[in-house]
């Protein structure tokens, strides 16, 4: 890659979300905005080698893209005259006399977030569109992240953009009466992106670092543009989780459970900062599920060892979480915390009530196997581990479970002999 290309790629990676958001605001159209930015990038490759790399490449690209778009709109006779006029007035209103260094692209990304995560779009479309326009990821990168084909991903994005345009999905931050509900949709999309990076369903690797970082970046952006304690909670939850990534797999790429992780590999600086941020959110007194999950994650992060973990607190937090989210998965986690406090029998009893609902959920059987082991019941543990192995589609998880099964089987035959 030449130096020019390197600078251009960096500028686009850093600022394309912001440039696109601003262009979409002016045109009210995703495709026109993307085309204009692409044209500007091509122009940069032509002009920068002779004129030099501008001081503020992002501002240069923004201005160039707007000029290209104005030209195109002027030529486009199908456009309704009145609308065209307004767009041109908006575009030309930018202070051209401002020096490039002072030039600031208006931050329209919050609007774009609400549009991309509009509940009238499917979850898959929300994820793809958010990563494409706000994250500046290429269609190929998104397709790879979601283990889908490039054609399918492109189709999904195209369809979503068409719906935004034709169904009248507004390009706006929702009004105060809708804001709370719609903000939840944005938070959920970001969290889904993050989860996707960790689950790697049917994938070979357990984490996809870039996707996780992108989700954290988006949450930080949402939090900065629209500060709300639950968004803060979401950001903390993801940061705590991500801070433990280095310890999650060993040198051979094998998965390491929280219990056996080398805690010195955790990113303690991030943990400390995140903890301070979470405390700030809690002080505002508007609790919600993300803040509580972040607190649980934070408790783990701050424990010196598995044995030193404050299970009492964690169990209480899970109890609080069930008030917001009574799903069987949350109840499963609450029961595991209870078991780790030493109350194994009651935990096992509450797990039995969840079996019907979680009969296809791998972690349920892995967790119940754990409880059987705590009670010394190796036969039942092996039985549940087999079911967990059958259900997992992630190769690394599978290897982890197979190892565990082997260890239990060896212990079992030792005691029997």
């Amino acid at each position, binding site marked *: 890659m030449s130096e020019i290309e390197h600078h251009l790629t960096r500028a686009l990676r850093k600022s394309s979300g912001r440039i696109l958001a601003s262009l979409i605001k002016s045109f009210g159209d995703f495709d026109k905005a993307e085309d204009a930015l692409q044209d500007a990038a091509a122009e940069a490759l032509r002009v920068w080698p002779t004129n030099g790399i501008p001081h503020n490449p992002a501002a240069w690209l923004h201005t160039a893209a707007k000029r290209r778009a104005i030209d195109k709109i002027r030529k486009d006779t*199908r456009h309704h005259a009145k609308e065209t006029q307004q767009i041109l007035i908006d575009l030309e209103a930018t202070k051209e006399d401002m020096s490039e260094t002072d030039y600031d692209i208006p931050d329209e990304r919050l609007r774009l977030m609400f549009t991309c995560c*509009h509940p*009238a779009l499917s979850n898959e479309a929300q994820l793809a569109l958010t990563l494409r326009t706000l994250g500046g990821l290429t269609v190929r990168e998104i397709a790879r992240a979601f283990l889908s084909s490039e054609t399918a991903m492109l189709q999904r994005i195209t369809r979503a953009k068409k719906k935004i345009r*034709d*169904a*009248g*999905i*507004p390009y*706006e931050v*929702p009004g105060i009466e*809708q804001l709370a509900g719609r903000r939840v949709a944005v938070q959920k999309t970001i969290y889904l992106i993050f989860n996707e990076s960790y689950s790697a369903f049917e994938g070979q690797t357990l984490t996809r670092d870039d996707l996780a970082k992108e989700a954290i970046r988006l949450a930080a952006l949402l939090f900065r543009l629209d500060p709300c304690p639950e968004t803060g909670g979401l950001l903390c939850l993801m940061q705590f989780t991500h801070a433990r990534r280095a310890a999650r797999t060993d040198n051979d790429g094998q998965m390491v459970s929280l219990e056996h992780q080398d805690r010195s590999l955790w990113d303690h600086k991030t943990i400390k900062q995140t903890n301070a941020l979470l405390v700030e959110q809690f002080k505002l007194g508007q609790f919600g599920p993300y803040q509580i999950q972040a607190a649980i994650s934070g408790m783990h992060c701050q424990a010196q060892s598995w044995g030193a973990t404050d299970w009492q607190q964690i169990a209480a937090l899970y109890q609080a979480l069930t008030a917001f989210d009574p799903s069987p998965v949350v109840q499963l986690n609450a029961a595991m915390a209870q078991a780790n406090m030493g109350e194994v029998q009651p935990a096992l009893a509450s797990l039995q009530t969840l079996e019907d609902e979680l009969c296809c959920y791998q972690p349920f059987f892995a967790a119940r196997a754990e409880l059987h082991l705590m009670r010394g019941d190796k036969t039942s543990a092996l039985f549940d581990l087999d079911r967990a192995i059958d259900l997992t589609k992630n190769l690394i998880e599978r290897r982890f479970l197979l190892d565990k099964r082997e260890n239990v089987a060896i212990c079992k035959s030792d005691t029997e002999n």
Partner: protein
Amino acid sequence: MQFMALIYNAEGSESSYEGGMGKIMADYWKFGEEAKAAGVMVTGDALEAVSTATSIRERNGKVELTDGPFAETKEQLGGYYLLECKDLDQAIEWAQKIPTAKYGTIEVRPVMVFDQ
């Protein structure tokens, strides 16, 4: 933009509405007045029962008539409103006020505009 709100519900599902049929009628009347006052209402009608429906198609120059609706589904089209709204968000806001949203489904779709 104009949005068509298509009102679907399963036969008999009205009975789950709190206050019964009388309350549904009153709430529909209230919705109509509110939408008119807000300048959102273009037009709207309720349709007779699905049992009155006739479906028509022409194939190979021959017109075929069928007794019954286009699609035999549990939820059937029972009426519509044509609403003038700023965007989809406003259309959704009004659609959720239609009483049948509480026991049926409202589908909103923009009316297509053809360029001259």
